[in-house]
């Protein structure tokens, strides 16, 4: 199914440059969930639970009911919550939040190709659409990010694009912008490593600030801007993304508001929020509710515990599905500006190995790392406005790859040709709408 039409809808970018979108936008908002940490096909989209990992026969089933359609396992349930009373730990599955699974209402790419079996390169792939397998940790992405593409080609403001990182580790806070000379920090997205910014340390360092009024801030910014003009930093010397003074004020107000809402117990959370991913998702919901950004992406990582604890991995997988379902539901029911106008894209950054490592967990189940060909198998789910109900590809029949996500987002926002013309994008990538 090819849906990319061609229209000329001119508008003026903030830079003053006249610009014409090359295709019709499909939705007004996009939320991309980097379902990261390394997810095996076998326990996720293939719904084989313990059958294809621990040699337990008759224990297949779907443990991700918000994303995928399928019956839950009926044996050896350990991935849920603890019912107490001496019952098996984790034996109570979390009830599905969505009335229908995303598979039932959207498009599932059953098997796609990852570009790398590593986390940071995988996240970079999702966020840049590039084949940057040489990407190193502790450095910003080598190639332009989707934030930069959208800000430069679609004219989005800094507050229109957000990245909610799951913490400070693995260089994830650097993913909000590259330092590419053609794009770079002047087009970067806003970012919170939310569990840290809004955690106890963030509160200690930021929570006692003076709430300056506009009358206080204007002279400060006026004098600062004079000093900055006098110093004359060039764009290539930028070490941080740029918001306008007004945008900065709004971000500071938001941070203070979150601390207040914490005190009042008003931060929305998934019903089961006993891990870091749920916390990250909560603050992503806060940013969505407050700023209604056109594009927001967040990353999760709890499933990475699979290196040493398979049971924990199953629990994290089940909770990640729960949190994503909750977020989609929250957008539809609590953010009227975004309800019915949003597309959500969900994809892991890499898979996991076919064969386990020797580490056993509490249930004597083997753990899995991510380094072999099986770790290059991933899936993707799209749901929302203008997304057809469809299943694409199948096990052994890969359609699409993770470098397709960036052009897909560009396609949704009507700047597909501009972004596809970037020399930094995987030349073989294309919008997933064109692969349907």
């Amino acid at each position, binding site marked *: 199914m090819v849906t990319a039409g061609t229209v000329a809808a001119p508008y003026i970018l903030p830079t003053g440059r006249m610009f014409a979108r090359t295709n019709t936008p499909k939705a007004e908002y996009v939320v991309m969930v980097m379902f990261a940490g390394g997810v095996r096909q076998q326990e996720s989209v293939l719904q084989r639970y313990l059958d294809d990992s621990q040699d337990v026969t008759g224990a297949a089933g779907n443990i991700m009911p918000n994303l995928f359609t399928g019956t839950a396992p009926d044996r050896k349930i350990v991935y849920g919550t603890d019912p107490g009373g001496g019952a098996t730990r984790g034996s109570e599955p979390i009830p599905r939040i969505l009335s229908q699974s995303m598979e039932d209402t959207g498009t599932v790419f059953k098997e796609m190709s990852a570009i790398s079996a590593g986390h940071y390169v995988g996240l970079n792939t999702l966020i840049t659409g590039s084949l940057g397998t040489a990407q190193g940790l502790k450095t910003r992405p080598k190639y332009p990010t989707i934030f930069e593409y959208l800000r430069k080609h679609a004219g989005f403001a800094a507050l229109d694009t957000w990245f909610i990182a799951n913490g400070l580790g693995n260089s994830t806070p650097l993913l909000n912008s590259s330092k590419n000379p053609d794009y770079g920090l002047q087009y*970067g997205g806003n970012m919170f490593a939310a569990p840290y910014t809004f955690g106890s340390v963030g509160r200690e360092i930021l929570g006692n*600030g003076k709430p300056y009024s506009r009358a206080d801030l204007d002279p400060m910014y006026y004098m*600062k801007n004079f000093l*900055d003009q006098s110093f004359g930093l060039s764009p290539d010397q930028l070490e*941080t993304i740029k918001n306008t003074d007004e945008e900065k004020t709004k971000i500071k107000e938001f941070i203070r508001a979150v601390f207040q809402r914490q005190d009042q117990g008003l931060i929305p959370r998934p019903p089961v929020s006993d891990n870091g991913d749920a916390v990250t998702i909560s603050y992503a919901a806060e940013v969505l509710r407050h700023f209604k950004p056109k594009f927001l992406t967040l990353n999760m990582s709890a499933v990475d515990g699979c290196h040493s604890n398979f049971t924990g991995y199953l629990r994290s997988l089940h909770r990640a599905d729960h949190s994503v379902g909750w977020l989609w539901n929250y957008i539809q029911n609590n953010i009227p500006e975004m309800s019915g106008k949003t597309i959500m894209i969900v994809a892991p950054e890499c898979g996991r190995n076919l064969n386990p490592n020797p580490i056993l967990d509490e249930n004597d189940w083997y753990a899995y790392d991510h380094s072999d060909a099986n770790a290059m198998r991933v899936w993707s789910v799209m749901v929302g406005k203008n997304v057809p109900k469809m299943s694409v590809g199948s096990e052994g029949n890969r359609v699409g790859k993770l470098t397709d996500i960036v052009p897909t987002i560009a396609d949704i926002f009507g700047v597909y040709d501009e972004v596809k013309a970037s020399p930094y994008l995987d030349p073989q990538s294309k919008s997933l709408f064109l692969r349907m």
Partner: protein
Amino acid sequence: MNMHNSGNKISLLLLSVAVLSSCTKEKNVTFGVNDKIVYEDKSLKTKRKSDAEYISILYTNLYQVPISPTQLYKTQNVIYSIGDRNVANEMVLSNYFNTSTLKIPKDSEMRADVAAFVEKCYKRFFLRYPSEGEKTFFINYIKSNPNVTVEMVYTAFSVSDEYQYY
């Protein structure tokens, strides 16, 4: 016996000559270099301070005591956790200004001699003297805006681009 005595006399003579010739008083030479206080040149500030350097210098500047390693570590991480570093720095600073142990001049001191205050600000934050244009701007701005406080001026300097470079 005589030969032995004459040998002693010769040794004593040589020793005396050696001692006298080695004890010449040295000349005290002073080279003609005038005292000069060296300040930075903004055009030479090309290296960005790391977050740790920036926070340490800022904290010491404002509190006149060094920041503790724990506090430094926490602050550094919080700044890293926010995409716009300027937003983070401004919020950290506004927390500092909400404490009572800050060592900054009173507003009345600033108003008593604005020119001297401006010069001190440039030396305190930028380690240099202001240019005539910079001095004129600040003197005029502070004098014509009675609501401008030391806190506002210090905030502007603390979060300025130049203060983040050396």
